[in-house]
């Protein structure tokens, strides 16, 4: 059995990529301190900023919210109920309970009520896969709530495995445009709030262990639409590399940020941003994608073929 590096007691908790054994108490401290270091490294935000955390009710987002509040940041939550049967019901309950536990404000968007259609209902009329329009809707409401309620930072719980799988995907196709946006902090611009990913250097397993040790009650079920996703496939592949040589994921990601990102960051296409004529949110078109989606759903109009992702 290994011994905790800090206090010497026997422990099972070992992080191979950092060659680090820690007892539960010191693991929690380490995880929180590492998040703080990441926040500072990328100058994500400060104690004076007002942060809105996207919370799904899963282990990563509840852990992130917990860590930020414990570190003394002004962080409230935004939960979007997607209307995906039992999965969404349980997610909302767990998120509400957690908000109560930490005593922070929680905003709730109910897609069925606020957008007029749930994800399964939209799916019936959409050509795109659910995760595609689901992502668009989530980004839209996050930005909308940030502006309406005066938050200047949007935090999401994307972890190292999320970032590495996307990085791998974008690298395999040398998608310079996407790569040039893959940075854990994107400044406020064109009416979009600043976006940050404080868990970008924490692996999925590290976040899950934190959730267990900090006794966070999260939803364990996966969204039914996640099954068979490309991300999942890549994560499993990358995990095999990591198993053979621990530290591969962190190296691939960190070296990208320090060596490759500076070279390509100015390749971000400059786009002109308008205000949606219907809802006032930023968009590249006259009417934003969300309003177009809503119109299509409610009035059954044909979708235009020039649909473009609105949000950088």
């Amino acid at each position, binding site marked *: 059995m290994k011994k905790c590096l800090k206090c010497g007691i026997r422990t099972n908790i070992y992080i191979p990529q950092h060659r680090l054994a820690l007892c539960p108490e010191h693991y929690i401290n380490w995880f929180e301190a590492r998040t703080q270091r990441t926040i500072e490294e990328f100058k994500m935000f400060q104690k004076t900023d007002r942060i809105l955390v996207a919370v799904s009710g899963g282990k*990563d987002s509840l852990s992130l919210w917990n860590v930020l509040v414990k570190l003394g940041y002004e962080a409230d939550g935004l939960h979007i109920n997607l209307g995906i049967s039992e999965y969404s019901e349980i997610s909302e309950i767990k998120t509400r309970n957690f908000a109560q536990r930490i005593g922070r404000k929680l905003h709730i968007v109910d897609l069925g009520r606020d957008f007029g259609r749930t994800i399964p209902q939209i799916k019936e009329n959409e050509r795109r896969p659910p995760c595609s329009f689901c992502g668009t809707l989530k980004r839209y409401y996050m930005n909308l709530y940030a502006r309406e309620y005066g938050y200047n930072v949007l935090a999401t719980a994307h972890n190292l495995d999320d970032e590495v799988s996307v990085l791998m995907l974008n690298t395999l196709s040398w998608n310079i445009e996407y790569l040039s946006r893959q940075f854990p902090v994107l400044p406020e611009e064109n009416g979009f709030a600043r976006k940050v990913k404080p868990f970008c250097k924490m*692996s999925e397993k590290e976040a899950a262990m934190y959730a267990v040790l900090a006794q966070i009650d999260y939803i364990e*079920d996966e969204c039914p639409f996640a099954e068979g996703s490309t991300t999942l496939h890549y994560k499993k592949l990358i995990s095999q590399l990591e198993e053979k040589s621990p530290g591969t994921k962190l190296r691939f990601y960190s070296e990208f940020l320090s060596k490759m990102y500076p070279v390509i960051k100015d390749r971000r296409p400059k786009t002109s941003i308008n205000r949606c004529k219907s809802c006032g949110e930023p968009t590249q078109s006259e009417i934003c994608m969300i309003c177009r989606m809503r119109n299509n759903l409610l009035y059954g109009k044909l979708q235009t073929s020039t649909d473009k992702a609105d949000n950088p």
Partner: protein
Amino acid sequence: MQVKEKIYVLYRGKKIEFEEEKMKVKEILKKLNLSGEYAFAVRNGEILDENQTVKAGDEIKIVNAISGG
């Protein structure tokens, strides 16, 4: 008559039983087609090492950290 104890494994809302007297965490992960790189076992709130043994009568929970979407 004595009821034979089993190893009880809770995994994503399902309860799975193993007839074995004892098993290593590693073996359980393997049976569930999971890797220790992203999954781990918890017994009474305590995280277990892959090489630890669980025995009949134990109830453990498997956490699979990987999520898609």
